[in-house]
């Protein structure tokens, strides 16, 4: 190890990999992963969220986790976005592509994509 910059580079590379253990962040993306959700394709959605959040550099702000049956099986895969101090947003009939869009527009840009939410379906 010859410099602080070298150490910092390792730290930066690793940070996203351990940040998950620092507990739940202010913003949570919860994917419904009950049998019905999985059957409707929730797993690719979950993985797309994890990837997009990490690639977008949001790992220390957004926690992606899963939950059981949300109770609206006809709308699966269902994803809820909880943000501190805001009303929760429920996205329905999600796909991996839509997930990436939500990360980009909603989590990064702060604009809820109304057409994917439950009220418009």
């Amino acid at each position, binding site marked *: *190890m*010859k*410099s*602080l910059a070298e*150490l910092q580079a*390792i*730290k930066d*590379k*690793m*940070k996203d*990999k*351990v940040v*998950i*253990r620092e*507990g*739940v962040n202010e913003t949570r993306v919860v*994917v*419904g*992963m*009950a*049998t019905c959700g*999985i059957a409707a394709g929730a797993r690719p959605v*979950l*993985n797309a969220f*994890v*990837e997009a959040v*990490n690639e977008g550099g949001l790992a220390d702000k957004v*926690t*992606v*986790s*899963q*939950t*059981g049956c949300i109770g609206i099986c006809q709308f699966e895969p269902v994803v809820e976005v909880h943000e501190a101090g805001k009303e929760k947003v429920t996205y329905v009939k999600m796909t991996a592509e839509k997930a990436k869009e939500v990360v980009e527009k909603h989590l990064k840009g702060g604009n809820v994509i109304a057409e994917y939410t439950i009220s418009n379906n």
Partner: protein
Amino acid sequence: MIRAHVLICGGTGCTSSGSQSIQEAFAANIEANGLTEEVKLVQTGCFGLCALGPVVIVYPDGTFYSRVTPEDVKEIVEEHLLKGRIVDRLVYSDTGAEEKVADVVPLSETSFYKSQNRVVLRNCGVIDPEQIDEYIAMDGYAALGKALTEMTPEEVIKTISDSGLRGRGGGGFPTGFKWSLCAPNKADQKYVVCNADEGDPGAFMDRSILEGDPHCIIEAMAIAGYAIGATKGYVYVRAEYPIAVDRLQKAIDQAYEYGLLGKNIFDSGFDFDLYIRLGAGAFVCGEETALMTSIEGNRGEPRPRPPYPAVKGLYNKPTVENNVETFANIPQIILKGVDWFTSMGTEKSKGTKVFALGGKIEHTGLVEIPMGTTLRHIIYDIGGGIPNGKKFKAAQTGGPSGGCIPESLIDTEVDFDNLTAIGCMMGSSGLIVMDEDNCMVDMAKFFLEFTVDESCGKCTPCRIGTKRLLEMLDDITKGKGTLEDIDRLEELCNYIKQNSLCGLGQTAPNPVLATLKFFRDEYIAHVVDKKCPAGVCKDLLSFTIDKEKCIGCGLCAKNCPVSAINKTDYVAPGHKLPSYEIDAEKCIKCGVCMGNCKFKAISKA
């Protein structure tokens, strides 16, 4: 892409309760469910809640599963990791058995962790101790980098001095001052030594730090080396800590690989080499001069001080020796600064202290709290209180060198000086809780047996004095003591304290003196009434059968291992069979009869 981490405790406590097979089961089930790309398995150091081991934490939600068995793993993987349904029955709930917490309570909110302040243990149970990258991700080696590139050795020493950090091995000697004594001494070679010869019965914080976060010790020792001008360091660790030794060696190898040990670290011109030396399990080798004698390859015996190690230590060269927990504080003080550190603790004891909770307490384990926390808070709020509704009697601190804190002083704010003031000692901070069923004379005898065994024999007061003390205590517990014996006991204690060569002898009488001070009535009961109030000392016990209550079932006689129970001719009114009686001559006071009697007809006194 990894979306969840499963952390499995690989500390000694959980390893002995089977965490290895749980890890294997997780690996197999994660594979079987096709989750290898999504879920990462991490073996960590101790989480602290050893009584509930083996423990498993699943992130990002932080679900804390306790007492996991290999059979449970399939369910956790299929339900939680695959479907996101938390397995409620395995979730640790601190509300006790009556009510399960339905929603996941973050670990940091449970009563065990809530008032803890994990500085020294911050990485234990969080990172994989065998991955240097994970340590670096948690600001690891940044303090070494800062010290080497931005600070002079004098500034490092000043920072540690100003922080008020005191030696966590027991004595409480100011660490910065110790370093400043060594730094000006000129020599061709100086040494930094880490004392990891943790020998107090009931103490295991040093082991947990080495197992859970070995790199922080390496980093701290290199910082110490830079501060005092030493280029070599030794970690003296018990051979009885195989996991700690193994992880430390791996960590040292990785640090060399990254150039964080060896030549010209951070291009600063500073060289530092680190070696492990294994102790053979002699308690006296935890004493600093005996430890150095042992590293030199000689029989582990203490040597008189002065000269102090700062002048003539290891191989007669200037040496700084600190305890594992002391070192573990160093990197964070350098990184976060003096103000941060001094904001925790009391006026003269800054920072936090790790305690190993043991004995009659619900949550056996490791806790880290700010100095100055009351004993009541530690035992009742963090430790969960005394099991089975028993009454608290005393807490023993500092192992064989320490004393005890009785109930009347339970609101004492625990720090170095307050404990010394009540005739106790921080020691290594094993905290053994005793309830009404513990006999204090017997407890003192237990520790004396330990020191008699462990006395190295070099000086007379310790070698012979502790032996005589033990004999006197033995007589007292056998009902052969007199009131004069108690006075003689006290006199001999003070003699040993004043005349022994090293800390082992000087502190060996402490358990006796402390119990004499706070529980003299128990000693008097043993010598005057020939009774053991707690019902522990067998020679002072007698078991009797209440012949009016005895229904003559004969279960006691059947189970008596020495056939000391016989049928009598007496049939109590209302009963059909003759009652039994105990032959006191034959009775070995094992108590089996009492445990077997369903009619509470047998009593001990």
